[in-house]
Every structure is written in structure tokens, then in C-alpha cells.
């Protein structure tokens, strides 16, 4: 996969403090978007299903899929909203 292809990742808000977190390669969650595991569109539903699995309470509220690119090791979401979630308010 070329570096600038669009990929998918799973994100949600951490239950205990609401911090946006990203599903990582080792099946955990990180508040740093660069740690996110990126997958192809075909693999995204599986990743989402895995993220929603587990005994209650899930550590993350309502995980969902977003599109992003990894550019020179940095992950950049495609939408402004997800950028704001990842990097904070613009003001």
C-alpha cells in the first residue's frame, strides 16, 4: 500500500474520561492517533467488530470507523472534525 492511500482506523472516546482514543496494532487503545492501526476498506469491518468485542464495560464508548492517511509516519484523518478530535481545538 502506498503511503498516501486512504486507509481506515477505529476510534472512540474512552469511557472513564472521554478522551479520544485509537485502536492499536496490539488490540489496545491509544490517545495518540499516530499509534492507530490502519487497515484497508475490506478489513475495516472486521477491525470494528473486534473493537466492539469484549466483556462489559468496554473501555471505549461506541467505537466507529474513520478514514485517514499515514504520511511520513504521521496519521492524518480526512475530516476536519476528526482532526480536531485528534489534535485538539483550533483556537
Amino acid at each position, binding site marked *: 500500500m502506498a503511503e498516501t492511500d486512504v486507509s481506515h482506523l477505529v476510534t472512540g472516546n474512552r*469511557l472513564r*474520561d472521554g*478522551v479520544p482514543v485509537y485502536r492499536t496494532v496490539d488490540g489496545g487503545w491509544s490517545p495518540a492517533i499516530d499509534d492507530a492501526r490502519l487497515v484497508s476498506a475490506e478489513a475495516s469491518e472486521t477491525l470494528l467488530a473486534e473493537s466492539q468485542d469484549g466483556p462489559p464495560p468496554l473501555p471505549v464508548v461506541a467505537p466507529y470507523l474513520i478514514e485517514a492517511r499515514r504520511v511520513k509516519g504521521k496519521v492524518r484523518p480526512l475530516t476536519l472534525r476528526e482532526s480536531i478530535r485528534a489534535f485538539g*481545538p483550533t483556537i
Partner: protein
Amino acid sequence: MYQYDTYDQRFIGERVAQYQDQVRRRLAGQLSEDEFRPLRLMNGLYLQLHAYMLRIAIPYGTLSSRQLRRLAYIARRWDRGFGHFTTRTNIQFHWIKLEETPDILASLAEVEMHSIQTSGNSFRNTTADPFAGVAVDEIEDPRPYCEIIRQWATLHPEFSFLPRKFKIALSGAPNDRAAIKIHDIGLYLRRNAEGEVGFEVLVGGGLGRTPILAQTIRPFIAKRDILSYLEAILRIYNQYGRRDNLFKARIKILVQSLGIDRMREEVEVEWAAMDHAALALPEEAIAEMARFFPAPDPTPAPADDEAFRAVLEAECGFARWVEQNVAPHKVPGHAIVTVSLKEPGVTPGDCTAEQMELVADLADRYGFGEIRLTHEQNLVLPQIRRIDLPVVWRSLKEARLATANVALASAIIACPGLDYCGLATARSIPVAQRLAIALAPREREIGDLQIKISGCINACGHHHVGHIGLLGVDKNGEEFYQITLGGSADENAALGTIVGPAVKSDEVVNSVDKIVDVYLKLRQEGEQLPETYRRVGNKPFKDVLYAAH
């Protein structure tokens, strides 16, 4: 102001314990998010973009200095050192952790505050005229009734799962400073032909996707009957409000579909069938409540003295501030001071913990310990002696709370928008900042100009009732702003109309400048923008805005 008694303290203690247990069950996995969400919303806790957001109730926009200091403490201890005052006279904290909310609610309870019903499909904060009790044009102080309604609405067992939220506002004066016509129920204190004071009841106002102004359902109802009448309206709404479509669920839609006459019939039939004894408000109960809101001491304070006049002449900043931010008080020698949270370039409505403490100190030293909030996201010191205005001004100025821009162009009302809010489609704060900075230099020439910005269709920035309203929308991933003109939130309430296609974010300042130019060119003596707009219509503005296209 109202003081909790043992019943209120007991209630709030029980409520905090109940909530603590709900959080425990959620964190232990006994409650799913779907089950927990309505419960946390009933305690004003949202899950937003960066964290949880806690919306704390400031009932009818009235705070004691002690309460304001506690908000500062909460800001420091459990948030990032600031809070945001909203268009419904509540305060929001944007960086809250769920696991800390039980402690925060316990801390609030110590100062008779809470976050009950600041969200969810039930009664929200009942708001009022920020100048209640001290305004020159007031018929009667609405706040005793606000408190009576607040209590009646608290955990109302029949109305805790309405089709949608329910907002009530009261005005005790003919000049509407509470925007009552954009509320689900608006109450005006009125005097009838016999000289008796009662309520005009309006119903079915609201903004959002379908902005509608409230209509009069009952021109006069006696104070004694106000709670039973409200209950009749709510019972009709609870049964017949739409539940199939979130965007068509407010009472305004029901009123629109039935028509006000049929709505009135339904309510009057229900009201006639009710047992009024249960909810009748005896005069004693009203008098008991009114004791908490005594009229200010009518003894005039000293008239403006030499010292005052000297500052007025020497410092034009002070003169401007008195002109713009200070309103007449019913007792001679006193004034109502609006504390501007709108310095150009700041986030409108935000207030740091230090600023909160400063205002609390000023309230204690010069202002009888009381602070108010306005739906325009400013604070108010409702009673300051005029001879104390210079020292109050200097203090506020140092804390950057004395920008002389109340009701002027740079005092923009803006919701938090996409920088914070999970519902937003575009940002509002950066636009507000750019506009405020751009317009400040000529705002005195412009005169009164209310600009209101919402970051999404939910219209928390009240853009529909701004002289100039901006609604942030998303067009293919880019932020655009739809402009409306001619709105107004006062007793001559009007909904703005769309002026043309939405403009790109980097064209907003230029567009608003052009609109202002047209207004300045065409306005007649004393006309504010809505009147000019009504007189000349859309075309002059539209032509100038879209000339290049």
C-alpha cells in the same frame, strides 16, 4: 436569592448519591451506554469531541459570589481553568472526566448548585430577564415564579421522558431581555384591566431546524393557576408530541400542526378537567418565595460626585464603558453593570477562574454579593452604586472584562462549535474572533448590531434571532457559512431570513463588512438593522454580497 432549606439539601444529597451509583454501575458494566446516556444527560453530562462536557445549571441566571467562586474552583481542579457561559445562562466545562463527576456534583451541592436537567428530554433551565428585580421598566420580579417553576419541574415524574427538551423563560418587563418568544413556553408578567398581575402564556417557540416564534395561548392567567396551566400544556405535549422523528419532536411542531387555536382548545379542556386544588399556588406560597428576592433598598445612593465626573471626563474609556455597558437601575444613584466576556479575539462567553473570582470579589465589595447571566453570554452585576463605578471599571479593565461593546458588533454570540461540540458541522469560535477584531474599530459608528453564530443547525448560538446570523455548514468537507439577516430576540422578535448562498469561511469577514456598509448607507434615523432590512428588503444586501458572481 433563593436559599436551600433542609428539604432541598436532602434532595440534592440523594440525587448526588443516585448519580454516583449510576456512574458506578456504568463503570462496572452493569449499565450499557444506551441505558446510561439518558441518565447522564439528566445530570447535564455530554460526551463531546475531546472529553465529557458538564453543563451546570444557573437557575434563571442568578448566582451568589460564593457559587461563582466554587465554579472557579471546579474550573481549576477538574477542568482546564476556565468555563463557558451559554445562551441559556448555564455554564459548561469542556474537559471533564466521567469518573470525577460524582465528586464535582458533590462539590456543587455544597454551594446549592447542581446540573440536574440541563440536558435530556425534560425541563431545561428556566431562564429570566437578567435585570430582574432591578430593571426600571419591570412590572414585577419574575424570579419567585422562576424558582417555583424550577422546583415543580424538578424530577417531575410524568414529564421526565418528553418527546424532546422543554425550555421555559420569563420576563417581568415589557422589554423582553429573556428572548421568551424563542422558548417552548414563554411567560410575560402582565397587568390586566383590573390592575391584577398575572401571566400571558406563549407556547411553541424554538430555533433549530425549524425556527418558529411562540404564540399566545392565553392572554392572562392568574398567578394562582400558573402551575396547573403549565401542567395542562405539558400533558398535551407529552401525549401528542411527535416521537417518530427527533427533528419534529418539539412542542413548536405540535402547535404548528394543530394550529394555535386547536392547541388552546386541547389545553383548556385538559385544564378544566384537572383538579386545581393540587397545584393551585396560594398567595402564601408566592409570598414565601418572594421573601428570597427582596426588592432593593429604595434609599438612593449618593448622586454622581466630583470624583465620578472627573474620571468621566479624563478617561474616555470609562465614559464609553458607562455609555455602553451600564444600564439604569430602579433605585437612584445605582446602576446595572454588564461584565463583557467579549473582548475581540477571545472565545465569546469564556471566563477564566481568575476572572470569575474577580467578579465574585467585586460583587461582594460593591454589588451585594449577586451576579447574573445573560442569554448573550455576558455576566451582570445587578446593583452597583454609581460612585463605585470608576473603581469597578478599573478592576474589570485589568481583568479584560470591561470592553465597552455590549450590544455592539464585536460582542458576538457564538456556540462552542466544531472546536468542542460533537453535534457541530463547522467551527464558530474562530469566525467570531475574526469578525470581532475586524468590526471593533468601527463598531461605535455602527451602533447596536447583534451578530450570532451557530456551528450547526441546532442553533445554540441563536443565529436565527441575530441581526446578522451565521450558520456553519459543511459543503464537501469545507466550512461554509449561511448568512441570515433581520433577526431579533427581543419583544419585537423576528426570525432572520437567508440572504443568499452560503459563503466560504475566508469570505465571512468581507461579507459581513459589505452587509454593514449597506446598512450604514441605507439606514434612517434610529433604525437598527432589522428595521432597515424590513424596510428595504433583501435585494440591496444580496446584490452587494454576490455582485462578483
